[in-house]
């Protein structure tokens, strides 16, 4: 595999010279994004089927066998609809907002490793990069609400911005002990450091906090205060239609997969098999299974729990998760020092 890639790169360099580097990068990005977009569209299908099954109803089953062509039908519908722009909207900013959301959701994938070799950009601060990029997602929501020039949209975006900023803090603090255990900010090293024991065993409470914060960060039920339909119609997305709405939708699902992937990489050992003798199964299969399990939890939670109240949500973030994760950072540091296992 590696020699094959090197040979492509060599011949490309000869053929095109300098122009080859951007072209090769674009090809690599396409190879990463195409499966991702496929997963995103089929996650919407899986969500509706799974929640349907949980609520004893069929879910989408008309388009294609088992409704498998439903995502395609939805995509066509979104494409051919008219993009409505409300009067009084700030048009450039209004159209920029979904681009920011989707862009931030996709760009973060650049540093995610799928196995020890399969990675688009091997940055040595991988995890910080993901955190930094995902902190940009809030702009899409914030700006869309303001540019729509509508009260529902604005209230929804204000709520969501406060929620995302709050939970980012808790999320960031749950990641620190993982970095402490690995002694590195590179996602590859973090996975490699879990070869003896997955991080979920020493850091189980943090994994729980991470996952709940992840649900809140992606604005998913039961923390989908942003689009609490009973109060805010559809929150920040009220005035969006057609592909502009579709981009928000894609961004949300891409973020769900991203949070699940990071969870699998940081706490569940990434592409490492659960038992050593199962090593003959390729690592990427393990990674996909782990991501799938976490995504199933996302859907399961959505089907199970009623929506949180907004003040309780903020209280949970600041007064429960933040002190707990800070405390666990201290515990991790002390334990690492006492057992003499400080890396680096």
């Amino acid at each position, binding site marked *: 595999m590696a020699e094959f890639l090197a040979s492509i790169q060599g011949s490309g360099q000869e053929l095109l010279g*300098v122009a080859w*580097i951007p072209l090769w990068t674009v090809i690599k990005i396409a190879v990463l994004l195409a499966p991702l977009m496929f997963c995103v569209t089929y996650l919407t299908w899986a969500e509706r089927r799974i929640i349907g099954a949980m609520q004893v109803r069929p879910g989408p089953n008309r388009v294609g066998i088992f409704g498998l062509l439903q995502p395609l039908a939805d995509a066509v519908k979104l494409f051919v609809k008219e993009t409505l722009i409300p009067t009084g909207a700030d048009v450039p*900013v209004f159209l920029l907002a979904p681009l920011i959301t989707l862009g931030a959701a996709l760009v973060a994938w650049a540093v995610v490793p799928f196995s020890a070799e399969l990675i688009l950009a091997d940055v040595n*601060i991988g995890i*910080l990069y993901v955190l930094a990029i995902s902190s940009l997602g809030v702009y899409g929501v*914030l700006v869309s609400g*303001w540019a729509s020039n509508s009260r529902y949209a604005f209230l929804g975006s204000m709520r969501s911005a406060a929620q995302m900023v709050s939970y980012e803090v808790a999320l960031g603090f749950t990641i620190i002990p993982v970095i402490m255990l690995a002694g590195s*900010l590179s996602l590859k090293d973090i996975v490699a450091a879990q070869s003896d024991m997955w991080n979920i065993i020493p850091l189980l409470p943090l994994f729980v906090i991470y996952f709940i914060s992840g649900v809140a960060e992606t604005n998913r039920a039961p923390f989908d205060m942003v689009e609490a339909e009973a109060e805010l119609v559809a929150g920040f997305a009220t005035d969006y239609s057609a592909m502009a709405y579709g981009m928000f939708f894609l961004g949300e699902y891409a973020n769900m997969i991203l949070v699940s992937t990071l969870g699998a990489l940081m706490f569940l050992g990434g592409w490492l098999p659960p038992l050593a003798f199962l090593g003959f199964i390729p690592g990427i299969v393990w990674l996909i299974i782990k991501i799938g399990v976490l995504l199933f939890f996302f859907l399961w939670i959505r089907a199970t729990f009623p929506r949180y109240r907004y003040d309780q949500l903020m209280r949970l973030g600041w007064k429960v998760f933040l002190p707990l994760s800070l405390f666990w950072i201290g515990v991790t540091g002390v334990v690492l020092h006492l057992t003499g296992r400080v890396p680096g």
Partner: protein
Amino acid sequence: MSSVADVVFYLFAAVLLIAATRVISVRNPVHAALFLVLTFFSAAGLFVLLGAEFLAAILVMVYMGAVAVLFLFVVMLLDVDFAALRRGARRHLPLGLVIGATILVEMGALLLAYHPATPTATGEEVANTLTLGRLLYTRYLYPFEIASLVLLLALVGAIVLTLRQRRVRRQCISLQVARTSAEAVTLKKVAPGEGA
């Protein structure tokens, strides 16, 4: 390889300069805040080109993820009439120019007197995050701690300034959660024609 990096550098630098100019020239304050975000982003891009990925990530996280979001919050929520604020701009122009010129001269003097230190380790040999951490916690320990103390002071100050003992009805969530149907619901047998 270097030519690609050069093109990217000039791209980021041009975007940065244009965005920075737009921050002060555009009329709508929300647009100004958004251009500020773009400025930060381009600066982060330049840091990456210098091989300082850690600084770039921190810049994006702190300035774009937190500071600029708060700016946007304030600008969106407050109904400030920026046209009125701008009205006196022409009168203050000479003073502004003097201050600007002073800063320009100072920066120029700094650049002239600046000798770039010979880099001891490049990012290839030692991860620059590690180097940065070592320096911060050894050589620059006191400035680092003092800076964090200053930030803590600002934090406490902000809380003290905004904390007023208002008589607000608060909800005690532990009480709400602890309520059971036994104490919340009473069943009454209502006699017909009398009401509860």
